[in-house]
């Protein structure tokens, strides 16, 4: 399936990318995170379990076991700090 993936705040800066379109062979948000983490470097550091992050699918925050629909807009970002 094809996913549109967005990164925000510290993750956007550390990955050096704000958005990308990916062909994805997995099923869940956790599968996608594993694919990204395997890129190594900042990807492994930020998504490898040491730091908290959040995943939103089509603009709703989801748990990592959530299934990803084809053409989903998936966002990965740090815990929020507005207000």
């Amino acid at each position, binding site marked *: 399936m094809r996913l549109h993936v967005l990164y*925000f705040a510290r993750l956007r800066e550390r990955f050096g990318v704000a958005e990308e379109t990916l062909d994805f062979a997995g099923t869940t948000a956790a599968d996608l995170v594993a694919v990204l983490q395997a890129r190594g470097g900042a990807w492994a550091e930020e998504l490898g379990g040491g730091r908290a992050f959040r995943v*939103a699918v089509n603009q709703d925050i989801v748990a990592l076991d959530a299934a990803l629909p084809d053409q989903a807009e998936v966002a990965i970002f740090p815990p*929020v*700090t*507005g207000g």
Partner: protein
Amino acid sequence: MRIVVQSDAFDLGAEVDAMRQGRTDIGAIASFVGLARDMNDGSGVAAMTLEHYPGMTEKALARLVDAAASRWTLLDVTVIHRVGRLLPGDPIVLVAVAASHRGEAFAACEFIMDYLKTQAPFWKKEETPAGDRWVEARASDDAAAARWNQP
């Protein structure tokens, strides 16, 4: 219900006046303004920049307001959150809640702020003497939001 994300300043007095204009059923309006401080985590802050997730932000704020409206009897709610670069002393966020009685207005206003702090996709980057830094989420904010789930 009025939900706005904007870079411009907002006007608390005008927002609250707009809520009560032409109505005689409101008994209580609780409001909150969050402001940028010159200090955070022991360091001076010269300015901050607020980033958000356009599209999701408005949806997330609307969900917070809906959650409050399903929990308390509310007559009107306004939420305005600024984005972009702000200086110490600048207002960041406004939440105003109108209800018949004060207990509901206070509770809903604080509930919306507590959940906004943990659910709405905004991120702050601060300019400090040691360089720019992203603000880290606080455990105390998670705790503040979690207490609304207690029986």
